[in-house]
């Protein structure tokens, strides 16, 4: 993985000192509240419903075991003993004390971590495919490009005060696991007919109040021109993005109101001017960055391990876990392991300090000391030898981290909701719990098959509800918590936004509604291979609507 050199370390250390100074000035009454707010947001610090919330960057989701141990230490020392993995591959702590946040940042800097630009109207943490470097359907490893972009975006002097937050995602695989079409900029790494690497670029996608799929602004940006193209898009946005209305300030609105053609023309004009300047990536620069993301020293292993085969036959719980929580690895004899953070009784994405320490230990023992966070709020151990899967599963199971539900209904994602967030209209963790209770039977879940349930406690959409196969959105109705439901969304290659089923459901009726939707699907699917999304796209809303709103259908 990428390791800091003296420059990276110096920049992060400088930032810690700067934020310590800003916090001291604020606490001494020398820095106005509103300005400190803007500055602390750029260091990941929110003041929430009960306490500050600190969001720590995990660039493109990649973590070393030493970094995870540090997160465990922070959870234990400064928080209530747990942390929360977010839908943007970051980690949030919900109970730090304001005056101690500079100390937390200083601790983080010792393991090459920070909270820079994890909130505020600036370029946020770069996200990518959690299977980068190990997926079979990958063209090249996207992470060197993510890191080049991360450095370009960090402390960018021109783009720290944008109209609104700005999110960039990279994918280099056939199957989009980074949801690039719902980002402010989505970059798909491609190879052209001449065999050269470059980027297909999507701009103006996003969730939130105005969910929209990004517009393709370039079929092929040459590999060396990544940073100049991004800079051109950001410059156009910084100058012209709306600042009169926070709900119309994202770049998606600029693209829509300007019109894609005109927008693309402005970007290309600016890009043409700067693309051969200092931002051009020299060939050896990309090469040197690639050298940070080397392939681990894999053992030469047979395609199938005999001991593994034996355990599969003898232990049905293990076999069931391998069917759900493993993903094919490109290296013979290795597997990608998903660590489920969706156990019954736990808020999706939450982990305790003890679990983090134990996971760091497992990563050291079985996975070259590295882990990844996914945007589905799970973790991945990407390089596990087949022969190690059984002891790894036993250890994960003992930690409550082996629920065999990856991709199934209870592998749902949700935001912190009304329980923590000051923006939320409604709770989401409690609804997640209801759904967990209702569908806990794993055989039933396996029968239902792959389905993505996504929940947000308000229309800002941190839980990505608009791209859930089933989306649930909390709304406030005269002080009561109600839930709107959408069907048919997707954030993958076939990206689409979900359709509203109709009127919203009360808190005590939302789990029933989800169950009804699942029952209708099971009745009308053509066979077990027809997934929920495919079935919905075939039959449309009508049969679901009829069952969800029986009175209206009869009237």
């Amino acid at each position: 993985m990428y390791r800091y050199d003296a420059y990276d370390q110096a920049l992060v250390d400088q930032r810690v000192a700067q934020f310590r100074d800003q916090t001291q000035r604020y606490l001494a009454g020398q820095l106005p509240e509103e300005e400190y707010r803007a500055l602390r947001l750029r260091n990941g610090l929110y003041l929430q419903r009960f306490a500050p919330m600190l969001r720590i960057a995990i660039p493109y989701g990649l973590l070393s075991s030493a970094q995870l141990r540090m997160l465990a230490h922070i959870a234990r020392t400064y928080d209530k003993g747990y942390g929360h993995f977010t839908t943007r591959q970051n980690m949030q702590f919900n109970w730090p004390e304001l005056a101690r946040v500079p100390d937390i940042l200083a601790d983080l800097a010792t393991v090459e971590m920070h909270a820079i630009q994890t909130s505020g109207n600036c370029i946020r943490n770069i996200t990518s495919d959690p299977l980068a470097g190990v997926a079979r359907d990958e063209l090249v490893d996207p992470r060197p490009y993510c890191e080049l972009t991360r450095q370009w975006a960090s402390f960018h002097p021109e783009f720290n005060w944008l109209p609104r937050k700005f999110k960039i995602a990279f994918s280099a695989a056939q199957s989009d696991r980074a949801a690039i079409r719902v980002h402010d900029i989505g970059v798909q790494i491609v190879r052209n007919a001449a065999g050269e690497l470059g980027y297909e670029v999507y701009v103006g996608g996003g969730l939130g109040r105005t969910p929209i799929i990004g517009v393709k602004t370039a079929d092929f940006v040459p590999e060396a021109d990544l940073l100049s193209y991004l800079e051109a898009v950001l410059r156009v946005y910084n100058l012209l993005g709306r600042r009169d209305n926070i709900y119309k300030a994202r770049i998606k609105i600029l693209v829509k109101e300007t019109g894609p053609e005109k927008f693309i023309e402005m970007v290309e004009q600016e890009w043409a001017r700067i693309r051969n300047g200092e931002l051009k990536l020299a060939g050896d620069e990309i090469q040197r960055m690639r050298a940070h993301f080397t392939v681990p020293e894999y053992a030469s292993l047979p395609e199938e391990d005999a001991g593994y085969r034996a355990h599969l036959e003898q232990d049905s719980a293990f076999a069931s876990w391998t069917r759900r929580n493993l993903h094919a690895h490109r290296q013979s004899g290795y597997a990608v392991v998903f660590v489920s953070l969706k156990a019954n009784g736990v808020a999706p994405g939450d982990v305790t300090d003890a679990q983090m320490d134990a996971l760091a230990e497992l990563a050291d023992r079985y996975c070259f000391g590295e882990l990844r966070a996914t945007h589905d709020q799970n973790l991945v151990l990407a390089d596990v030898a087949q022969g190690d899967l059984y002891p790894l599963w036993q250890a994960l199971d003992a930690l409550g981290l082996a629920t065999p539900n990856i991709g199934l209904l209870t592998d749902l994602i949700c935001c912190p909701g009304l329980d923590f967030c000051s923006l939320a209209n409604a709770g989401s963790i409690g609804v997640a719990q209801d759904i967990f209770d209702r569908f806990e039977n794993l055989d039933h879940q396996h029968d239902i098959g792959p389905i993505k349930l996504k929940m947000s406690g308000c229309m800002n959409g941190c839980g990505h509800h608009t791209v859930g196969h089933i989306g649930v959105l909390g709304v406030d109705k005269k002080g009561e918590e109600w839930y709107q439901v959408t069907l048919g969304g997707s954030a993958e290659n076939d990206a689409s936004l979900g359709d509203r089923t109709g009127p919203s459901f009360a808190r005590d009726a939302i789990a029933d509604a989800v169950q009804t939707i699942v029952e209708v699907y099971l009745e009308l699917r053509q066979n077990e291979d027809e997934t929920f999304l495919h079935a919905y796209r075939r039959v449309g809303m009508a049969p679901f609507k009829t069952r969800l709103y029986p009175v209206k259908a009869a009237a």
Partner: protein
Amino acid sequence: MSGSILMRVGLQPDPYLHLADDAAIPASNTDILVSLARWQTDSAALRARQGRVGVRLDNHVDVVPIAADLARADLICLVFPGFADGRAYSQARLLRDRFGYRGQLRATGAAVVRDQIVALHRCGFDAYDLRADQDPVACLAQLDALDLAYQPAQDALESVRRLRRRAAVQLQD
């Protein structure tokens, strides 16, 4: 005269008279700062004078179509109406980088504070009309401390990318 302006060398008296749009154009040798509207409507009269002329642009002005005209200004003053409104950063970069503007580039408004002065400097500003509550010594100290940045920008600082490239070449040699 309207007070003091922070320059890289320290606080300097502002030689420019800030002229309201309805005020008469003063004697020929006085330096004046005018609005863009005045700059455009009184173009001939302003040019006939000996004193220097600066122009102030609101942050929603598109500098591209008027850049050639602005090149004649001795000073361009860009405005930050709010602490968190960063449009003038991009105006500054366009003026410096795209149009090669070499006169004084002055920042004024709510964002001209110690917590933003490094970014202002990096984007091409060289004169700072500090907000009233700001300590010029503390602001200058920020500029003095600047020694490292990832991005190429308008200042002379070598980007980290360039420093690394050079180190890599030296290793090869």
